[in-house]
């Protein structure tokens, strides 16, 4: 490696280094400082110590947002991902001309941005005329007057249903890729030895797709905790009735950009970053623990 090539390597990296220096490292440091200042707009700021954190951690609305976000994350992992895996298992046959076609269809909602999905579903969830209530009525004979987005008890189910539509096919793609690692020989051997479908799933498929599953679980958790656009559009820029659809990022957005208190926004951002970090680490730990036991 000569000097000229080293210089060239740094030149190739320079656009990234300059832009991320100005718009990532510097703001990252500033976010730490900002969390300890009380701001009003972008010009006035006063040092207030831990008071932003004290305010946020004493605010019942923040805990409302934390609870909603956690519930959403739990549904993402324990309802959405099993459905994704199930569809991937159904689609994953050795030779199937239709596999690519159905994969395409099931993935397609992911192309629609969360804002557009939110706008579309806010109409689909309308009482009486909305497609979803009409479908429920058609199938079961009632449900026509469910007020999904106006009834606090139904806001979270509506949010979960919408995210199922958006993400089940997307995560299925990852599971399908992971299923490529399942050895056909091992599956055949297990079948010859008399292992049933469930035993083959637990002892052959699960170990083979574990790395992908861990990746998908962590990405879904991180994504769930950063939920914003979907409920924002679905509930027309509010937290919904009784703040039943308020998420942590929405809480941050309201304080930082609607009330102009950037300091509190930075404090919430830090709390969120720590939550995400702690959960990701815990998930990696748990999966390692399962592996060794």
């Amino acid at each position, binding site marked *: 490696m000569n000097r000229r090539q080293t210089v060239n390597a740094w030149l190739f990296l320079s656009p990234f*280094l300059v*832009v991320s220096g100005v718009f990532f490292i510097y703001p990252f440091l500033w976010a730490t400082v900002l969390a300890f200042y009380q701001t009003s707009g972008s010009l006035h700021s006063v040092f207030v110590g831990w008071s932003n954190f004290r305010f946020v951690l004493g605010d019942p609305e923040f805990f409302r947002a934390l609870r909603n976000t956690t519930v959403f994350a739990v549904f993402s992992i324990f309802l959405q991902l099993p459905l994704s895996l199930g569809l991937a298992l159904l689609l994953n046959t050795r030779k199937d001309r239709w596999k690519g076609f159905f994969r395409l*269809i*099931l993935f*397609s909602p992911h192309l629609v941005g969360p804002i557009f999905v939110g706008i579309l579903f806010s*109409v689909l969830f309308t009482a009486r005329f909305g497609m979803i209530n009409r479908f429920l009525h058609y199938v079961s004979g009632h449900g026509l007057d469910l007020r999904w987005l106006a009834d606090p008890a139904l806001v979270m189910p509506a949010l979960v249903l919408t995210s199922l539509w958006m993400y089940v096919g997307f995560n299925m793609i990852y599971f*399908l890729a992971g299923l490529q690692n399942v050895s056909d020989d091992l599956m055949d051997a297990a079948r010859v030895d008399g292992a049933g479908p469930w035993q083959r799933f637990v002892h052959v498929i699960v170990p083979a797709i574990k790395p992908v599953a861990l990746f998908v679980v962590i990405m879904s958790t991180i994504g769930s905790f950063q939920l914003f656009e979907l409920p924002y559009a679905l509930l027309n820029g509010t937290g919904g009735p009784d703040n039943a659809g308020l998420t942590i990022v929405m809480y941050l957005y309201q304080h930082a950009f609607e009330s102009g208190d*950037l300091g509190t926004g930075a404090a919430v951002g830090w709390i969120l970053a720590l939550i995400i970090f702690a959960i990701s680490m815990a998930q990696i730990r748990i999966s390692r623990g399962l592996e060794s036991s």
Partner: protein
Amino acid sequence: MSFNVFHALLIAAAAVYGALWFLRSDHGVSANTFLRYAVILAASVLVLAPFAWLVAATFKDPDVLNEYVFFPPLSEWSSDTLNFKNLRVLFEPRQTSAGTFTFWLFIFNSLFLACTQTGLQLFTSSMAGFALAKYSFRGSGLVLGFILGSMMIPPILLLAPVYMIIVNLGWIDSFLALIVPSAVSGYGIFLFRQAMLGVPKELLEAARVEGASEFRLYFSVALPLVRPMSGAFCLVAFLASWNNFIAPNVFLHSTHKLTLPVILQQYVGDYSSQYGVFLAGTLIAILPPVILFFLLQREFISGLTSGAVKG
């Protein structure tokens, strides 16, 4: 509750399943295959229903929007039930304080920003990925570590300080506020590094011996070899930019500079009584990503999952 086509379908499916199970002597293999397809088909119908509904809502006359769930029956097709009224209202010139605009302007804004950001990210990420994959120099491990670490930080944490920087630079209400910060992508560099690792060293050495510059090695030798990754990344970057809402909503103020997600979110309030209009806009807004996806879908699915499977 009345008996309808849905219930008939369920009963028919159960009957076919039972018949296959008992009449075919293959231990239920064909019955299971039937069930597999039935479930996949049902899931596909559920996924496609909102799209079909959106297309129908766009072309139905506003007066009959709620009369039919999807399209009216063929016997009632006429210009009174199906027409372009919603689209015509959507594309009507609108008066704002800064002048008169049509919906084309917002489509153009979104296309311009998405194409610019995609092009810039493609260039900077492939170049940086090339440097990290094909040069061994002191500090390369540090840069890679920084890139992987940066992906753990929730972007919303940086929004408040970035907002202040944008204010200080005087870029509020300017496209620069959206283009410059997103001209680079850590995720893109990571993907391109993985792809560039597969470029043979001998090829680069041969070009070097012939006197090619280092930039030429990157641009004419390495870049053409990772075309699948370029295709996949183009789609990822285009989608991210096209669907981006927070940044344009925070940094842009003038109506004539807004992008589709921001303006449509406003139209939901403006056209609350005639929602066929903003639904027509939503249909238009989802078309470009869909077209791009069908052009690039092969590269996309392999590129999207390559990081996860190896990781």
